[in-house]
């Protein structure tokens, strides 16, 4: 308690507000506490300390106290302290969410909500020379939105995990990592300066690594985790360079200071464009855009709740948050913003095409995530920062629902296969079918999410996706982006093209999502006669969160209804975020909010709805689940379908062009060639050899023959005499 008080005092030294906002530090610290406790449970219960003299022990006996057996397929042993972990793990998240809500209420009711962010500084992190970086957290509208999403959706997913991971022997370790992840994610969204954000940024990458490779006894899982971390690191490199550029030119890394200092930057200049492009490189890594998206599909090797939390709702949205946070930079860098839009749009359609031909239910959702992230980047790229964040929020709802729902499905399939000792793939849609009878709740809720993601009106996804597409169209008609050029192409052409790509991607989204529902829940069951009776709905601890998310996916649109809708309130989120991103958004649209005629607006909306409807209709008509066969009997794909199924062979290309050559060059040229051969062999050992050779030469003079020595003596005497007399 004393510790709490002292931290409290330290925190509020500069800015004690006397409200719930002073307890902000609890929001990230509670999950951290969960990590420490669950980590302790995991380590202490799994280990027996070794003998005092390990080298004399020979082959030490391992007694049966060791529970580190890993996932034994035949007899999984649940962890002894799982009940404690459940309480701690989900408890801290729910408590953190509670505190976050309290902070939110306090912030809203304080006058500061309209003007200034509230920064709580806890201690000095780095202070040297003219560099000053503090460990500070910031409350403003944007960070609050993110905090609520992270803790709220996070709490639901933690509760789901209680059911999903209950039987796993690594249960405490799982919750420890999950709590640690939430801690880092909260540091990311609450950070008051770039370095603190970066701590969270890399931290979530680390937890992603630990969680993807959770079942590390399988090499493929460990590989996937490592790939995620390294690809993320490439993005982090970009983030670092952006930070260096910022500090070297603007002298600070604090958000509040930079917002005013950035006014001195030349709009569209090389410096601000470079900063934004490097920041975006970081975003492509963290948020899985082209070219650094390749880790996300592999990341599906982790447990499904991990995919829901990290790779759908939170971590991958960090890039979108970063751009929204840096809106004061991106709004004055039209080239960089156009790049963001183009990459986002291309990624949206690229991933959507791949999603059309994936058979693993989680892979479909993974590519769907990449595609939807593309939409978010399109949104923040065109300067509609609120729209991008809105889609981030709604996407968190329905994508988490989709992933958790697929988790329920996989859970049911796993149980069925366990019961019959079968080794079929529990995640392949070709082994599913007709599950709507056995899992009605999951079926209904996943349809809610599918309608949301497809953009069917009144569901949340419709409003957010439509907002983005409309923004692109509107900005194509007139904005700083439309005035700029992108590699020679006029900005408005680029924006119209991206709008078209966005529509196309929306069509494909509707198709592949409906395809997924058709193959999983509709049609005949392909699961096998023996397994079918074992298929059942998941327990309520798992279905409960699905219900909550389903409700949110359905009504989430209320967060930001478009202005032309005759219902109140409209554009709530946009108004809420205005103090943070409003000025930047206006800068893009030439200083005045865009006005378009109602008829044009209805036309655009109508087009989007039509696309969604066509997509669903195509899927229902052309994709017949009755024609599928179970995975074991399925024929391999051919032609372009094969290219799609193999993700355009991008991974293979990266391997061949980047990974293999690095290894070959390092091993043969650098290590064996230069280090061992040239430096060590030639110079070091070579000089040793030369020294010995010279010595050997010298030793030949020592013949041991006294006569020779006498000869040399005489010659020497003559030489000296000659030198003396002839001088």
């Amino acid at each position, binding site marked *: 308690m004393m510790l709490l008080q002292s931290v409290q005092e330290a925190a509020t030294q500069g800015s004690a507000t006397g409200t719930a906002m002073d307890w902000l530090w609890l929001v990230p610290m509670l999950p951290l506490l969960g990590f420490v406790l669950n980590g302790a449970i995991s380590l202490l219960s799994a280990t027996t300390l070794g003998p005092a003299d390990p080298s004399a022990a020979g082959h030490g006996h391992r007694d049966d106290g060791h529970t580190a057996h890993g996932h034994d397929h035949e007899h999984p042993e649940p962890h002894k302290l799982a009940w404690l972990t459940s309480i701690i793990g989900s408890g801290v998240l729910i408590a953190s969410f509670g505190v976050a809500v309290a902070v939110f209420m306090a912030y809203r009711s304080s006058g500061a909500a309209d003007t200034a962010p509230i920064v709580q500084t806890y201690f000095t992190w780095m202070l040297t020379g003219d560099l000053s970086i503090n460990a500070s957290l910031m409350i403003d509208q944007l960070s609050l939105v993110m905090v609520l999403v992270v803790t709220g959706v996070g709490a639901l997913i933690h509760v789901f995990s209680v059911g999903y991971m209950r039987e796993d022997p690594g249960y405490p370790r799982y919750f420890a990592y999950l709590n640690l992840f939430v801690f880092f994610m909260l540091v990311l969204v609450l950070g008051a300066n770039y370095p603190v954000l970066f701590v969270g940024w890399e931290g979530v990458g680390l937890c992603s690594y630990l969680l993807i490779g959770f079942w590390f006894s399988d090499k493929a899982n460990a590989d996937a985790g490592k790939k995620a971390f390294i690809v993320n690191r490439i993005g982090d490199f970009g983030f670092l360079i952006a930070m260096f550029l910022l500090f070297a030119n603007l002298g600070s890394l604090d958000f509040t200071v930079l917002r005013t200092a950035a006014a001195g930057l030349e709009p569209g200049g090389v410096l601000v464009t470079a900063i934004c492009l490097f920041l975006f490189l970081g975003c492509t890594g963290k948020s899985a855009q082209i070219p650094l998206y390749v880790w996300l599909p592999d990341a599906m090797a982790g447990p499904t709740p991990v995919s829901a939390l990290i790779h759908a709702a939170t971590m991958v949205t960090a890039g979108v948050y970063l751009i929204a946070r840096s809106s004061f930079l991106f709004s004055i860098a039209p080239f960089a913003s156009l790049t963001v839009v183009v990459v986002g749009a291309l990624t949206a359609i690229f991933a959507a095409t791949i999603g059309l031909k994936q058979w693993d239910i989680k892979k479909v959702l993974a590519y769907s995530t990449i595609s939807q992230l593309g939409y978010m980047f399109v949104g923040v790229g065109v300067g509609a920062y609120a729209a991008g964040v809105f889609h981030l929020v709604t996407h968190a709802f329905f994508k988490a629902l989709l992933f958790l729902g697929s988790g329920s499905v996989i859970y049911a399939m796993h149980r069925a296969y366990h019961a019959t000792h079968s080794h079929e793939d529990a995640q392949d849609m070709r082994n599913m079918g007709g599950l709507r009878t056995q899992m009605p709740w999951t079926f209904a809720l996943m349809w809610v999410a599918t309608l949301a993601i497809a953009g069917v009106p009144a569901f949340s996804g419709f409003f957010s996706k439509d907002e983005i597409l409309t923004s692109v169209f509107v900005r194509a008609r007139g904005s700083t982006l439309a005035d700029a050029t992108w590699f020679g192409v006029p900005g408005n052409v680029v924006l119209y093209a991206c709008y078209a790509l966005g529509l196309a991607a929306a069509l494909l989204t509707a198709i592949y999502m409906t395809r997924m529902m058709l193959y999983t829940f509709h049609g005949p069951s392909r699961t096998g006669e023996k397994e079918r009776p074992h298929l059942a709905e998941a327990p309520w601890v798992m279905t409960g969160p699905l219900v909550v998310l389903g409700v949110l996916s359905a009504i989430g649109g209320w967060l930001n209804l478009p202005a032309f809708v005759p219902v109140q309130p409209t554009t709530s989120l946009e108004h809420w975020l205005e103090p943070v991103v409003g000025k930047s958004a206006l800068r893009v649209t030439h200083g005045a909010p865009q006005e378009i005629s109602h008829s044009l607006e209805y036309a655009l909306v109508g087009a989007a709805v039509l696309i969604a409807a066509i997509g669903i209709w195509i899927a229902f008509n052309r994709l017949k689940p009755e024609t599928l066969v179970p995975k074991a009997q399925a024929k391999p794909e051919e032609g372009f379908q094969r290219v799609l199924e193999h993700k355009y062979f991008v991974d293979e290309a990266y391997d061949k062009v980047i990974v293999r050559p690095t290894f070959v060059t390092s091993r043969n040229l650098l290590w064996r060639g230069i280090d061992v051969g040239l430096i060590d062999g030639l110079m070091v050992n070579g000089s040793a050899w030369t020294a010995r050779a010279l010595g050997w030469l010298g*030793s030949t003079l*020592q*013949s*041991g*023959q*006294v*006569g020779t020595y*006498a*000869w040399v003596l*005489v010659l020497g005497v003559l030489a000296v005499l000659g030198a003396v007399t002839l001088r």
Partner: protein
Amino acid sequence: MLAESLFFSAVLFVIGVVGVLTRRNAIIIFMCVELMLNAVNLSFVAFAQVYGVAGQVFVFFVMTVAAAEAAVGLAIIIALFRHRHTVNLEQINLLKG
């Protein structure tokens, strides 16, 4: 007179030196060393004719040293022979390295 004696002594000396440097048999080498010493004696006597009796005194010194050295040297050769069974200096190369 002096010049001829010195010339004669120089010739003898050089013969001795060449002998020391080129002969293999240790005893022959000793004889050549004796020859060198005696050549020097000759030049001392020649100088004594011109510059006074000190030169002849020197001859006594040299002869004494030559005798002592011959004795010791031959003793060493005998000891060597006992170990190596040869007086061929080319085969005695323990200092080789």
